[in-house]
C-alpha cells in the first residue's frame, strides 16, 4: 500500500479526491503501483536519472556558471488525464489558437478589432512585440502560429484554465517525446494494459505541417537554431534529427536574389521552409536588431517576397504578450462568436489605473509577471517574496505599468511524485503542443512540469522544476 501515507492537503489532486478516494482513471495505475515497494520505485527513479545523462538529454542554464549542462529531472510517476478531460483541453486549445491566428492576421492588416475597440489600440501598438515590418503581410496559407504550447493549470475545484499562451517557439516537446520513451521502459506492462494514446507521430506531423507551407512538391525544410549554447539546443538538434532535416545556424545561410540558401560542401542549396528557434528580432539584422549575429541578413525580404516560409511567422510574439492574454476571451468571442471552452486566470493589467492600484495595494497576495518575459524570469510570487522584493516590484510596476500584469496566486493541482519520504503531492502544470497546418492538431500528450520542492509553485526548468510523462487515455 504505497499510497497509504499520501496526503493531498487542500489542493486539487489529480489522483485522489477530497475524501482520499482514487479517481477512476487512476485506478488501474494505482493497483499496479501497489505491487511496487518504495525501494523498487527509488531504484527505477535512479535508473531514469542515469538514462537521461547517458542520452545527453541536457539543457543549458543561463545565469549559472557552474555546470553548463543540466538534465531536466524526470519524475517516473506519470500524470494521467482521462479521455473526457482531454476532449475539453483539445477543443479549448483548437478554439483558442484559431482565434489567435485570426487576431494576428487582423492586427497586421485591417485592424478591425482595434477599430471596434475590443482590444485597446495603444496596448497593441505600444508593444515591442508588434513588428511594424510585418504590417500588410499575410504569411503562406494565412497561418501565423504554426507551433504553440499553452500552459494550463487546474484550480481548487479542478477546473482547467489557460495560464499563458506560448506562441514564439515554445520549447519542451523533445522532453515530452523522450520522457515517453524512458517511462515506457520503466513500466512496460502497465503501459501496455492501461491504453495510452501515442505521441510518437509528433515529428511526422511537424514535418507534414512545415512542408504544407510551401507550394513545392519536395520543399527543403530546415531547423534554424541560435547554436549549441542556447538552452534548448538539445531540442533543436533532436527535432531536426527526428524529421530528417538539416539543422542550420545563421552562419550556414546566405540570402541571394531574395532567396535563402544553405552553404554546403557542394555549393548553395535553396531552403524553402524554416522552423526557426530564434527570436523575431534576432532573425534579420537588416530589418530588426542590427547587432544580431545569430540571424541571416536579408531573410526578411526573402520572406516578404514569398521565397521562404518561416514558422512561426515573424510578428507572432504579440499574441502571447501577457497583457494581450487578458483579452483572449474577448478575442475568441469577437472572431468566432463563441464562449471560451477553457477560461483564463483572472488578470490585472497594470496599464489600467484601477487594476494598477489594486496590484500596488495587494502585491503581497499576487503573482506579478513581466508582459514579455518567459521561463519564469522577471516574476514575483507575492506570498513567497520578501518585503524588499515587494517594494522593488511596486517601483517596477509604477515606473513601467505597460510591462506588468498580475494574477491571484493560484493553487496548482498536485500529482503523486517520488520524494525522499516515498510518494508526496507536488504541484504541476500542463503544456500541450498544438500544430497549425492544414488543420489544428493537439498532440495527445503534454509536458507536465512539476515543482519538485515541497510546496513550491514554480515549475520552470530554469528554476529547479522537473517533468513528468503525461498519459492521455483512450477511454
Amino acid at each position, binding site marked *: 500500500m504505497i499510497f497509504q501515507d499520501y496526503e493531498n492537503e487542500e489542493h486539487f489532486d489529480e489522483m485522489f479526491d477530497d475524501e482520499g478516494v482514487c479517481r477512476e482513471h487512476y485506478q488501474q495505475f494505482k493497483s499496479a503501483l501497489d505491487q511496487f515497494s518504495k525501494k523498487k520505485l527509488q531504484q527505477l527513479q535512479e535508473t531514469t536519472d542515469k538514462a537521461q*545523462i*547517458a*542520452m*545527453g538529454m541536457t539543457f543549458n542554464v543561463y545565469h549559472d556558471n557552474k555546470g553548463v549542462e543540466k538534465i531536466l529531472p524526470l519524475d517516473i510517476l506519470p500524470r494521467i488525464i482521462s479521455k473526457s478531460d482531454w476532449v475539453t483541453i483539445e477543443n479549448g486549445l483548437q478554439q483558442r489558437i484559431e482565434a489567435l491566428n485570426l487576431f494576428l492576421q487582423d492586427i497586421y492588416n485591417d485592424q478591425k478589432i482595434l477599430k471596434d475597440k475590443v482590444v485597446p489600440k495603444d496596448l497593441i501598438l505600444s508593444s515591442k512585440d508588434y513588428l511594424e515590418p510585418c504590417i500588410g503581410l499575410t504569411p503562406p496559407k494565412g497561418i501565423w502560429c504554426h507551433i504553440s504550447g499553452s500552459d494550463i493549470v487546474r484550480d481548487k475545484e479542478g477546473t482547467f484554465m489557460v495560464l499563458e499562451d506560448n506562441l514564439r517557439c515554445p520549447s519542451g516537446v523533445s522532453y515530452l517525446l523522450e520522457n515517453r520513451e524512458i517511462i515506457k521502459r520503466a513500466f512496460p506492462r502497465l503501459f501496455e494494459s492501461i491504453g495510452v494514446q501515442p505521441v510518437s507521430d509528433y515529428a511526422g506531423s511537424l514535418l507534414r505541417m512545415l512542408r504544407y507551407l510551401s507550394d513545392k512538391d519536395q520543399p527543403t525544410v530546415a531547423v534554424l537554431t541560435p*547554436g*549549441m549554447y542556447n538552452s534548448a*539546443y538539445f531540442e533543436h*538538434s*533532436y527535432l*531536426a*534529427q527526428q524529421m530528417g532535416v*538539416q*539543422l*542550420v*545556424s*545563421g*552562419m*550556414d*545561410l*546566405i*540570402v541571394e536574389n531574395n532567396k535563402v540558401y*544553405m*552553404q*554546403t*560542401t*557542394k555549393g548553395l542549396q535553396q531552403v524553402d521552409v524554416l522552423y526557426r528557434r530564434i527570436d523575431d528580432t534576432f532573425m534579420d*539584422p*537588416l530589418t530588426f536588431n*542590427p*547587432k544580431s*549575429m545569430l540571424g*541571416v*541578413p536579408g531573410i526578411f525580404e526573402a520572406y516578404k517576397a514569398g521565397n521562404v516560409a518561416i514558422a512561426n511567422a515573424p510578428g507572432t510574439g504579440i499574441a502571447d504578450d501577457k497583457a494581450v492574454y487578458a483579452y483572449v476571451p474577448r478575442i475568441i468571442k469577437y472572431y468566432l462568436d463563441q464562449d471560451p471552452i477553457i477560461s483564463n486566470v483572472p488578470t490585472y493589467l497594470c496599464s489600467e489605473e484601477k487594476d494598477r492600484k489594486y496590484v500596488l495595494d495587494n502585491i503581497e497576495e499576487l503573482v506579478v509577471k513581466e508582459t514579455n518575459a518567459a521561463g519564469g524570469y522577471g516574476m514575483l510570487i507575492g506570498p513567497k517574496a520578501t518585503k524588499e522584493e515587494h517594494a522593488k516590484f511596486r517601483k517596477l510596476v509604477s515606473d513601467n505599468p505597460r510591462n506588468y500584469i498580475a494574477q491571484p496566486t493560484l493553487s496548482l493541482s498536485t500529482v503523486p511524485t517520488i520524494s525522499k519520504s516515498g510518494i508526496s503531492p507536488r504541484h504541476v502544470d500542463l503544456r500541450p503542443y498544438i500544430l497549425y497546418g492544414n488543420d489544428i492538431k493537439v498532440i495527445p500528450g503534454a509536458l507536465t512540469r512539476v515543482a519538485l520542492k515541497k510546496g513550491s509553485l514554480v515549475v520552470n526548468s530554469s528554476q529547479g522544476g522537473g517533468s513528468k510523462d503525461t498519459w492521455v487515455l483512450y477511454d
Partner: protein
Amino acid sequence: MLSRVAESLFWLGRYTERADNYARFTDVNFNLSLDLPPGMKEQWEPLIAATGDWDDFTKRHKDFTRESAINFLAFDTENPNSIINSIKQARENARVVRENLSKEMWEVLNDLYHYINTAAKKKIWRKEDPSDFFRHVKESIQLLNGLTYDTAPRTEGYYFTRLGQFLERADKTSRILDVKYHVLLPSVEDVGSPLDFLHWTALLKSVSAFNAYRRNYGTIMPSNVVEYLVLDSKFPRSILFSLSNAEECLHEISDSRGRSGFSNRIEKLIGNLRSDLEFAEVSDVINFGLHEYMDNLQQKINTLSEAIFEQYFKVKPNYVLEEQSQ
C-alpha cells in the same frame, strides 16, 4: 552536406583518433617503464617532445615525472591536445551535428566524456597503475569506430569523419616514431642492446603492430620497424595506409572514385604525398633522417588540412558590419 556540419564531422574523426593515440602511447610508455632494468629512469620527456607540446609542458612543470606527464597528456585542461580536451572537443563537435550520428555513436562518446571527467576528479594520474583508464579510453574509441563502421551510411559525412581520422592517424604514427628519435640511450654502445630492443618493441605495441610485424619480419630490426610503420601498404596504422585511405575518402567526397589523377588541389597534394611514400625505400627515409622525414610529413599533412578547409569548410560570412547596415 552543410559545410559547418562537414567540418564538425571531420574534427570528430580527428579528435577521437587523437585521444586514442594519446591513450596508446601513454599506456605503452607506462608499461615500458615497468620493464626497465633497475637504476634506469623512466623517460617521459621523449613522449612530450614527440607530441610537439614540450614548450607548453615545461612552462607548467619542472620535471618530467610519470605523474606530471600522465596528468599533462591525459587530464590537463590547459593542454589543448590532452585526452580530456580531445574528447571534450570530439563531443562538442558531435553535439552540434548530433542529428547526423546514430544514437549509439552519440551515447558511446557521451559516456566516454563523463567517464574521463570522473577519472579526472578521482586524480587517476596519482594511481600506481592507471592502465585501466587508458584501456577504457581505447576500448570506447574502438567501439565508436566499430559503430561508425557498422551504422553510418556511406555518404559524405562518413567520409569526412574517416578523412579526419586517417589524417590524424598518419600524423600520430609519425610522432610515435619520432619518440624513438628523442629517447636517449645511456651510451652509443646501447644501440642494438636489449634496452634498444625494448624500445622498438614498445613502439610497435603502441600501434598494436607487434604481432603483425613479427609475422612479416620475425626479428626486431630498427629499419624494418620504420619500414613497417611508414611504408607498409597493408597495415592499417602505417602512414602509407592512412594516407591512401584518406585519399580514397577525398575521392568519395568529390565523386571521383575510380578515376586516376585528381579533381582538385587537395587530391593533387595527397596523391603526390601518397605516391612519394609508395615508391620510397626505407633507406631513403633513414638517409634523409628519421626525425627530419617525419617532420616533413607532418608539415605536408598540415598543408593538406588547410587545403581541405579552403575547399570544403570555409563559408562566406553573411553578416554585415553595423556601419554598413545603417
